[in-house]
């Protein structure tokens, strides 16, 4: 599938551009942040494209005003700026008023590795998860991301979409394989344990599962692409028969999907034991490419495999 050698960002905005050509109510607001197809957006749909400048608080407020008037608004910036710089605007203008604005954050986890902690997306899931009326999507590949660009007229409250600049190899071959009503996909069943992963960590989880299979550990993988609302009942039905659950995310261990699963497990009797794998709650303070930073906090395939192998051995 040649088309998908592009990352999530370009797939997402290519899809949004084609939607916006059909639906003139769609408005894209960017906070001085680009993407390849934005030029076409700006040129062909100039009434539907706003570069609001480096002013994220105003970006959310203006988006709210447009959404109240029936516009389908997408706002776009790098994760920390799209979520944290304007957090209280998201809370009051979008969540309190249940406005269906789409917040698109680029740069999940260490995606912008060498730009340092200011540009890392390591707290966004935690922050967005605590807001009432918020929906959170964290796609694992470019196909999922492109489908998330389609507007949903039934949407109540804002939607946060956490994108990665990478997005291939694809996790899914066909869009029919992604059940958006469920919010997660079981990519393989496992007798010994399930890895519940989100974003590009799903691809890592599949590689880890393959390696552990070679060591006779039967691992299932779940792609949790909708983090909120969290489909607790259906996920529990999948994992309750296993002995162990591992959560895997490129996000701080505090408040992310590890916390969401822990909140579920804490309410269940005879629940599987849980190991959360993610970024420790500290700013990395060192520089390097993304792979280097992942290795630094043992979020690379080797590190994750070793971590799980040892944990399984300790908890036979």
């Amino acid at each position: 599938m040649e088309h998908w050698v592009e990352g999530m960002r370009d797939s997402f905005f290519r899809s949004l551009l084609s939607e916006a050509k059909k639906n003139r109510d769609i408005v894209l607001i960017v906070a001085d942040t680009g993407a390849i197809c934005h030029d076409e957006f700006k040129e062909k749909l100039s009434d539907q494209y706003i570069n609001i400048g480096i002013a994220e608080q105003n970006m959310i407020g203006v988006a709210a005003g447009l959404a109240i008037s029936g516009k389908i608004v997408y706002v776009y910036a790098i994760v920390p700026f799209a979520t944290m710089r304007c957090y209280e605007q998201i809370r009051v203008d979008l969540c309190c008023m249940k406005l269906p604005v789409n917040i698109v954050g680029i740069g999940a986890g260490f995606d912008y590795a060498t730009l340092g902690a200011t540009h890392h997306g390591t707290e966004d899931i935690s922050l967005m998860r605590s807001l009432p009326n918020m929906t959170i999507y964290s796609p694992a590949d470019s196909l999922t991301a492109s489908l998330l660009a389609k507007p949903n007229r039934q949407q109540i409250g804002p939607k946060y979409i956490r994108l990665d600049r990478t997005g291939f190899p694809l996790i899914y071959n066909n869009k029919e394989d992604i059940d958006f009503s469920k919010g997660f996909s079981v990519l393989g069943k496992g007798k010994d344990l399930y890895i519940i992963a989100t974003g590009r960590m799903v691809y890592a989880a599949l590689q880890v599962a393959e390696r552990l299979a070679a060591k006779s550990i039967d691992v299932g993988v779940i792609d949790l692409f909708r983090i909120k609302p969290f489909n607790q009942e259906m996920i529990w039905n999948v994992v309750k028969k296993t002995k162990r659950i591992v959560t895997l995310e490129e996000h701080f261990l505090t408040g992310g999907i590890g916390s969401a699963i822990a909140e579920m497990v804490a309410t269940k009797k005879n629940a599987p034991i849980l190991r959360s794998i993610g970024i420790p709650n500290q700013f990395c303070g060192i520089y390097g490419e993304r792979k280097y930073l992942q290795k630094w906090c043992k979020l690379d395939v080797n590190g994750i495999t070793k971590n799980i192998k040892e944990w399984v051995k300790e908890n036979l």
Partner: protein
Amino acid sequence: MKDKIVKGKNLSSEKVSEFKKLAKWVRKKILEMAVGAGAGHIAPSFSCVEILVAIYYSGFLRINQKDSKLENRDRFILSKGHAAPALYAILADKGFFPLSDLDRFAKEGSHLGCHPEDSTPGIEIFTGSLGHGLPVGAGLALSAKLDKKRYLVAALLGDGECHEGSVWEAAMFAAQYQLNNLLAIIDHNGLSATGVLKNYLGVEPLKKKWESFGWDAVLVDGHSFEELFSVLKFASSRSSNKPLVIIALTTKGKGISFMENNPIWHYRVPKGEELEIARKELNLVNKEV
């Protein structure tokens, strides 16, 4: 210091005294609500009573209480949301909800709290946190432009609220997009929750600041109906491409002598002797509160 634009005397003295009476009634309701609930921002509400009366009773704001979501209505945003009691009294008087709702202000199960929520008829947006009204108002004004609609958007801000960076982000944006259908009104009483602005973070020269951000700016007496009616008439008929700010000079706590210009009354409800004085100054007999 006053602008030419507000010199017109197109309001009869009978009308002025009628609106003064109305303003007094609004102040009375504010005091009743706050005393009844033991909560609410009396002094910040008193500061903008004449401004709100002018906005809602001069014919400036084209709204319909029978259909509060009418598509082409003008939008008013109380960005200084803590003045909600003043707005509630006016909306109730206009018939957006029953007057008896005011008696339940901030009490158990009431839909009227110390800050306005968009679920209340006549309230456009959720405010209470400062610095939100102008950005959202700019979005509403832009929407009108995009859809070629002719409604106006007016937002009432506090002067202390102008400390918020988001106000100036929106100010820049509104000028860039020539949102001449957007009006900001600043309740310029010089005080905030804890002090006198000029003593800790001054906002002057306020008019020049707005002008340098690309806005038309007018300075008026925020307690004079003649000036307020006149400037609102100007606001709805002008031909500039720029957004307009009306800087209304006001007195925080206006109407009760011991509250006037005293920051401690930002969020305090009078009790005992203070309450007696307040009632007396608003010409209320005890049983009315």
